[in-house]
């Protein structure tokens, strides 16, 4: 088990419970989908897991070590392994920086990382960035452009390149395809799937789109009002023991 979450709870105020005793675990190289409607706490869960927000009760352990967002030295070790991709491709890149500078930010902070995909020695910073862009299927000419000159899909690819640059073993994706066109969505999902296989990465895929989740994930967790309603493997999707809420979600997404 690489990521183990036990009894995780968080509330914003006394009456507003964001997460309520969440427990689950992920094996290395596994892809877990977290499905829920807006307000279900799924984005909060992502932020807590990546250490952007504090939590009140429960434990998170990664590879046996507890994750405490307040201790900076521990956090560094964790961040080296865990990266996140956000929903809004337009605001996940600084509009005032050229793409290549944005891409390099994690790698600049973890200089000891020498990712396997970098070919050649003594690359300049810009060359490194160009290689990262090529890795996610972008033209290296884009390195010098600004985010406003890129399409939504291209920006999301840049975000992926940035997140993968330090070769994390756990990637948390918060609705990475929600703001994209259908054809681009499929490209991005395929890209993630390829990297997951290649790097043997664990992915937590947060989405309200059950189709995208079933495309990528083997395990699905259904979240509602901060509580886990249902947790099952992909081949039990239509099993009659599914929670009514899960059934409603599938019903809403299906064509018939």
């Amino acid at each position, binding site marked *: 088990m690489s990521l183990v979450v036990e009894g995780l709870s968080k509330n914003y105020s006394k009456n507003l419970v964001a997460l309520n005793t969440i427990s689950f675990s992920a094996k290395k190289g596994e892809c877990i989908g977290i499905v*829920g*409607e*807006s*307000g279900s706490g799924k984005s909060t869960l992502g932020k807590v897991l990546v250490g952007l927000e504090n939590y009140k009760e429960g434990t998170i352990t990664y590879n046996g070590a507890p994750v405490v967002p307040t201790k900076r030295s521990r956090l560094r070790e964790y961040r080296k392994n865990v990266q996140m991709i956000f929903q809004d491709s337009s605001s996940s890149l600084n509009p005032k920086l050229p793409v290549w500078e944005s891409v390099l930010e994690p790698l600049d902070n973890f200089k000891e990382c020498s990712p396997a995909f970098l070919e050649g020695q003594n690359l300049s910073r810009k060359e490194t960035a160009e290689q990262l862009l090529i890795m996610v299927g972008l033209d290296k000419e884009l390195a010098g452009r600004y985010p406003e000159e890129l399409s*939504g899909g291209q920006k999301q690819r840049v975000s992926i390149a940035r997140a993968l640059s330090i070769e994390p073993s756990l990637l948390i994706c918060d609705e990475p395809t929600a703001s994209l*066109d*259908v*054809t681009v*969505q*499929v*490209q991005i*999902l*395929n890209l993630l799937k390829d990297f997951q296989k290649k790097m043997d990465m664990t992915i937590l895929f947060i989405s*309200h*789109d*059950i*189709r*995208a989740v*079933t*495309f990528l994930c083997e395990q699905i967790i259904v979240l509602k009002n901060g509580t886990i309603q249902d947790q099952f493997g*992909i*081949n039990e*999707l*239509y099993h009659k023991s599914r929670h009514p809420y899960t059934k*409603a*979600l*599938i019903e*809403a*997404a*299906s*064509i*018939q």
Partner: protein
Amino acid sequence: MSNPIISIEKLKIETRNGSYPLVNNVSLEIKKGEIAGLIGESGSGKSLTARAVMGLLPVNMKNSGRIVYKNSDLSALSPKDHRKFLGKEIGIIFQDYRASFTPYIKIGKQITETIRTHYPIGKKEARNQALEVLGKMGLDSERVYCSYPFQLSGGQVQRASIAMVLALKPALVICDEMTTALDVMNGEKVLNYLEEVRKETGCAILMITHDLALAYKRTDRIYVMQQGEIVEEGLPEQIRCQHQHPYTKKLCACLLSLPGENFIINERVNDL
């Protein structure tokens, strides 16, 4: 079925300085009680078509061709006369729900005012109608009625804005990416209510969306739009299973299948 509620003939939209057309040769018609889906990717001109019907094109664009709504050609009208059709005759629901309400007036008041601008009824009656439509959208009507927009979640505001449009009982509703900002469950609720209103009033609906699953499931007829032109049209089953045009094929291949939905060959779409 009778005459179409609206028929668009050879609509062409171009910028005033005359570069190549953004929308070209678009013809479609919607009959009473029909839901037509207009699908395509961003930049394909779906929203511009809707704006032309509403007479709300940006100032630097002009349209040619005919837009016939119940026997009157909208495109020949002056902007002022055109605007008279909006609201009571043609309602539009936008994707961006935040812009639908003035932030510092309570939602209930905005809805009743809108109803009373179009129908000569008393305050009480308007209030009752507002509460009714809010309730039908699956909202806690009393609470939403007395709330300011910022006190509600995005989904709630979007449903309230849809309630406001539908409260006027328009004969044609244009939904421009209506459910994109909502999640599946909320989107489903909204669509169910739209269905109900359609059965009740027999209004026609133009559903502009990029969500194929939604179009397959909810529409009576689908128009596929690519780069300003309609490349294919047909019944949902035809579009889904017997599509002709390569672009339609590409779009359909992008609909990820749920396990067990074996009618789609879920091939890899690398060569897009």
